[in-house]
């Protein structure tokens, strides 16, 4: 510790160079923090998803409907706590460019399945009583300026109602807050009973049963039981846990893991050269100073350690700064909205520190070795 002052002074011997090198390292680790943070964020978000919720869809693809008659059979499977459903409505408001993620459901059961939805009990009651009722998320209501009691026309290009129109009127009977489930959670719900009665075709079909379990440990057994129950029937089912479903949907987009790793790899490789060069320059410039240190009695190893420490300090300090910056970015409102309550995973910060140490060692070692091998007489003679 008593050498800290010496190392510190060595580091700031050339201010501009140290600052520039540092900024580059900070930026590299900012990028590392952002990309790996998002990457980790996705996986932890997936892991955090409830394991006590199962999604049943048609085996051949989620766009194929399943009969409503499955509902009571799934409910009777031992270990099932509640079952709700989603039938895709695919609406838009005023024009097709304003899509509304609307689903027909059984609201009472839905709230049992998604326990973290915040909603006033009287709204659930009102929904059960109003056939043409709709529950909308607070965010969606705010976007379109809807209030409880409003009647809103929702267009759909798929479903025609019995009146022959593809604009359906719904009465907003309540709002809810489902922010616990992230931005992708459907934000507009209509009554399945009404929807099924009023549509011209597709009667009795829906797209997902959402099954809430009494005991998450039973997830596998119950999934199998449900799928076995409908094997060889007109519509075979596939039951997945919430996280398995989300994972497969995410994978359809892109292999985020690969992209993040590839970019970070390129950045860190570049960084290695940068710091190595800075350290090399700095040692070369200080040849005579290091020789003086040795003359004063510093051992070869001590000089080597001094230089290595300097490199370590530079990298660690800058890396910490970069990752802190990335953590700050994650706290920005825009990203909070996307990921829900999200902060820099400690795991990523840890890996970042590890990489910083690695970069420091690889880039600091050659100059440190050079410093160690320095011959006092030759160095002082300027040879």
């Amino acid at each position: 510790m008593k050498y800290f002052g010496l190392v510190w002074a060595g580091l700031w011997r050339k201010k501009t160079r140290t600052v520039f090198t540092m900024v580059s390292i900070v930026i590299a680790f900012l990028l590392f923090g952002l990309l790996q943070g998002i990457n980790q964020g996705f996986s932890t978000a997936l892991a955090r998803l409830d394991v006590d919720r199962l999604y049943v869809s048609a085996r051949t693809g989620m766009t194929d409907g399943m009969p409503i008659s499955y509902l009571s059979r799934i409910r009777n499977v031992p270990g099932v706590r509640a079952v709700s459903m989603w039938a895709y409505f695919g609406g838009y408001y005023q024009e097709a460019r304003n899509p509304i993620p609307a689903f027909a459901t059984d609201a009472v059961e839905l709230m049992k399945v998604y326990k973290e939805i915040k909603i006033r009990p009287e709204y659930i009651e009102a929904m059960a009583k109003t056939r043409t009722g709709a529950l909308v998320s607070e965010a969606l209501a705010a976007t379109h300026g809807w209030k409880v009691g409003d009647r809103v026309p929702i267009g759909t290009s798929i479903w025609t109602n019995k009146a022959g129109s593809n604009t359906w009127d719904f009465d907003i009977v309540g709002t809810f807050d489902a922010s616990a489930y992230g931005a992708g959670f459907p934000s507009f719900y209509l009554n399945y009973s009404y929807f099924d009665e009023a549509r011209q075709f597709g009667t009795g079909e829906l797209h997902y049963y959402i099954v809430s379990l009494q005991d998450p440990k039973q997830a596998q057994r119950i999934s199998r039981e449900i799928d076995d129950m409908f094997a060889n029937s007109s519509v075979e089912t596939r039951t997945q846990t919430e996280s398995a479903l989300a994972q497969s949907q995410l994978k359809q987009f892109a292999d985020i893991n690969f992209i993040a790793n590839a970019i970070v790899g390129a950045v860190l490789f570049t960084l290695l050269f940068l710091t190595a060069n800075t350290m090399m320059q700095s040692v070369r410039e200080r040849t005579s100073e290091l020789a003086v240190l040795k003359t004063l009695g510093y051992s070869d190893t001590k000089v080597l350690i001094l230089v290595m420490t300097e490199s370590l300090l530079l990298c660690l300090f800058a890396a910490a700064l970069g990752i802190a910056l990335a953590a700050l970015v994650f706290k920005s409102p825009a990203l909070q909205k996307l990921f829900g309550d999200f902060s820099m995973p400690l795991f990523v910060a840890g890996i970042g520190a590890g990489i910083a140490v690695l970069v420091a060692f690889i880039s600091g070692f050659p100059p440190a070795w050079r410093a160690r091998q320095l011959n006092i007489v030759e160095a002082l003679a300027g040879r």
Partner: protein
Amino acid sequence: MKLFRQIGAVTAMNFRSLPQRVSTSLVVVIGIAGVVAVLVSVLAMSTGLIRTMENTGREDRAIVMRNGSVAETSSALDRNSARLIVDGAGIKRDANGEPIVTAETFRILMLQKKADDAEISAILRGVGPKMLQVRPELTIVEGRMFQPAVAEVIVGKSAHAQFKGLNVGDVVRSRGANWTVVGVFETGGDAHESALMTDAETLNSIDQRGAFQSVTALLESPSAFQAFKDSLSANPALAVDVVRERDYYRQQSKTMTTIISVIAYVVGGIMAVGAVFAALNTMYSAVSARLQEIATLRALGFGSTAMVMSVLAEALVLALIGGVIGALLAWAFFNGNTVSTLGGGGGLGQLVFELSVSPQLMVFGIVWACIIGLIGGLFPALRAARLPVAMALRAV
């Protein structure tokens, strides 16, 4: 003229001393190569996607969907509408005087990627009997065409290459049918190559559906589009949107290309800032290594512009080398690589496309590199120019 000679002389001197500063200079080259490589390869994704989408669709084809549909997925056209659309003005007719249209329907098939077994959704498109006339670009490269009324499919070249179980003779399961793969088709590298095709009536009867999702019509000429659109809009029995096929597909890929471009510019931008600082570092040390030299030249009467220019030229050349290396790396590693993402047909099916590192993209990357080099060289250059001669000489 004298100025140019001075610049030339100083720059030449700089370059001759470059070998002594190899490691410092390498930092700029490698740093900038990294930035350009990442930028160009990420952008290659969106260029590839755009290229595939632009290949899909012709100016003289129009796609008709139920009004309010953003994509075919959310469209439904009953038989009656489909019949009325056929009577639209401006549709090209074949030798028998029949309009060349195809009423299409599709469903999603769950398949697996060859690369990582990831489950993906692919599109099975049911097409009308005149499909080959509507899409003359479609050719069978292996096996044969499907037969109507039996569960047979042909698969696109990209789907065949990327997804499991799509060889001729394989069977693909969907609800109500086991589809036999009978052929592989090619459509000139467009979005349809990521899909499977079968007969629309067969698909509709298996899925117990009475409706189609879209009708695609071959028009007499690109300019017949307006007449076609007007004739359908004027029909009170129809409630449809008519879009040029090319515009439709371009629209479909818009969200994805925007996302990719944003990623490219954000990541590329952040990396570029880092590279600017690396360049600053290098050029400052290049200048300080030559303080004595610069001061001497100034004392001999070389102008400050010549100094600025020579430093900038050096930064620019280093950046250029880095940019070229980066662009070439991106090209060597990624050009022609196939990737797939969600995006085909209403954002529901997988779309397979090739990364395309086009010459324009490489030039763009190199320009980006030069900008980094210029910014990184500017401040050190000014420092060299502003150096008080006497002090610099004394300092040595």
